[in-house]
């Protein structure tokens, strides 16, 4: 049984054990035969924020988009509240999609420059919720207040806003159809650090106050540490570790997780740290290495790692790792 340990939202009294979104054997392949997502099993529990981390090309964005059916998986199932949504069509697809929304990295590229902000935010209400114009506009105004821009912002156009303000517009638009599940794909990566903190706090407030469940995709481990209840790490299309936030940052179980954490430049006084610098680069995702995909860069790989692919194993409640030689002692009987 996978029960996340006590988490931020859990402290409010609600235990987060109800799966809201589930990927089962999910696979995404592109025309060039690149397998971006390789048979991923992943559960996001109601009310939690799951941080999905990894380097560029690891498949984290593809996985996030496949969960929302913004790209079609080639195999496997996506279960939203128990229902496999990979085959949905028509009205049922539309109404389900309203509950699943996305916040993008580039708030400028994803906002129509010719439209007024109020119309941009109201659009999903009209389109997927079938709201009437007056209601949609009123709700848009309320959402713009909620994200800290104020109603007046609705009469202006996206280019009149700074990057941080545009991300607030993107968030208001995602909230418009009252979603339950949000995929936020690098939502603060394009922002300056002083603005980034504002948006991180806003997302934390919104997920708490509205009981939202979020998959937070980021390459920035510092950001993930501040927003996520649990962390999942991807490497070459596979999930290689899942852990509660504090456990992950205190003692990662996978050598790749360890290397990622060790590579993050730290604000420590004194001389530079001895760190584990990973040599080499990400292998070609079209031809992943045999055995464990990470073995060519791994500091502790043995023969078995070069031939036998390790499964993702839950080695203690809430902690899973895909490694023959995990760095954290196993506790299972």
């Amino acid at each position, binding site marked *: 049984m996978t029960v996340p340990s006590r988490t931020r939202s859990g402290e409010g009294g609600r235990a987060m054990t109800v799966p809201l979104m589930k990927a089962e054997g999910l696979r995404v392949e592109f025309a060039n035969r690149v397998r971006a997502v390789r048979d991923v099993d992943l559960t996001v529990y109601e009310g939690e924020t799951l941080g999905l981390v990894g380097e560029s090309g690891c498949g984290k964005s593809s996985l996030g988009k496949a969960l929302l059916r913004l790209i079609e998986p080639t195999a496997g199932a996506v279960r939203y509240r128990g229902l496999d949504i990979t085959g949905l069509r028509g009205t049922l697809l539309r109404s389900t999609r309203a509950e699943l929304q996305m916040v993008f990295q580039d708030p400028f590229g994803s906002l129509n420059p010719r439209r007024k902000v109020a119309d941009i935010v109201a659009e999903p209400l009209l389109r997927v919720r079938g709201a009437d114009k007056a209601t949609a506009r009123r709700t848009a105004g309320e959402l713009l207040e909620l994200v800290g821009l104020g109603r007046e912002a609705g009469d202006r156009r996206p280019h009149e806003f700074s990057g941080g303000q545009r991300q607030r517009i993107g968030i208001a638009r995602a909230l418009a159809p009252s979603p339950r599940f949000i995929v936020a794909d690098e939502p603060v990566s394009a922002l300056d650090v002083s603005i980034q903190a504002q948006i991180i706090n806003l997302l934390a407030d919104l997920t708490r106050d509205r009981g939202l469940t979020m998959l937070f995709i980021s390459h920035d481990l510092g950001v993930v540490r501040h927003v996520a209840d649990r962390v999942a790490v991807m490497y070459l299309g596979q999930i290689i570790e899942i852990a509660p936030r504090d456990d992950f940052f205190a003692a990662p179980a996978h050598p790749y997780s360890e290397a990622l954490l060790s590579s*993050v*430049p*730290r604000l*420590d006084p004194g001389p530079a740290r001895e760190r584990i610098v990973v040599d080499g680069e990400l292998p070609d995702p079209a031809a992943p290495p045999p055995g464990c995909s990470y073995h060519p860069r791994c500091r502790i790989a043995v023969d078995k790692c070069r031939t036998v692919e390790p499964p993702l194993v839950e080695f203690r409640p809430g902690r899973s790792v895909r490694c023959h030689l995990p760095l954290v002692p196993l506790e299972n009987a």
Partner: protein
Amino acid sequence: MTEPLLSIRGLRVEFDVPGGRLPAVGGVDLDLEAGEMVAIVGESGSGKSALAMSLVGLNRGPRAHIGGTATLRGTDLISASEDRLRTVRGKDVAVVFQDALAALNPTQKVGAQISEMLRAHQRISRAAAQARSVELLREVGIANPEERAKAYPHQLSGGMRQRVMIAIGLANEPSVLIADEPTTALDVTIQAQVLRLLKRLQADHGTTIVLITHDLGVVAEVADRVAVMYAGRIVEQGTRDQVLFAPQHPYTKALLSSVPRIDGPAQERLPAIAGSPLTGVDRPPGCAFAPRCAFAHDACTSAVPALTQRHGKPGQLDACVLGPDREEVAVP
């Protein structure tokens, strides 16, 4: 006291934009000593790149107004002619850009691009330049340099392209290497490799490196000294330890505390800085950070505070008029 290698005085960069003149750099004084790595830190629009690019004449143009001086071994880089600058650029001062794919010529093999830079400033044969190119690729940590020299930029990964950029920058052993966000586009494991490379080059060649970055973690890893820019001016400068671990300016303090860190106590709320930086053509009198500063009072809005030693240790300068007891007068 030894003469600084590069001495910047009263540097101003303004651009004509619709609606007026944008003061990108509003008067900067900065000295670089030979062999040190100085980080210029700031958020977008702080003027850090405009400052660096004016040192190599890369932002000259009909809409640019550049004033002040930047003296490198007797040559003022700001007033130097374009012809004079051409002999300086790449030889005495080289630049490594963030986006290596855009900065490299897509139609030319990377080895040839390094050779070209060598032959632009040195009288050496084609064969010697080729051999030296391979050597440079090896030095920046590229495996199979003979093979890689024959590759086109798009055939290399982002990390390798950035190494090629650094190899081009180093080709003529410049005394100053300007690295403009050199690791921002790279993944964190590759960033660690490139930072280690820059640090090694500084040690092995005594190259003075100007690191332009927004990432305070990167600064902590590699910089010897730090200048923090806000709205076109340096608001604090000093050694890495002074600026990062005993900051004096409220902006430096606020910026440091808003960084989401992977160590230390996990805060549920990050201390954010309210509002956004000044980016328009109109600049109110006084300290540019005052509208966002938790400690601002009347004195802050009357005149621009000079960058001088006020609160910190010797060598640490800041541009804040508030007294050392400012915490006590803070209005939350």
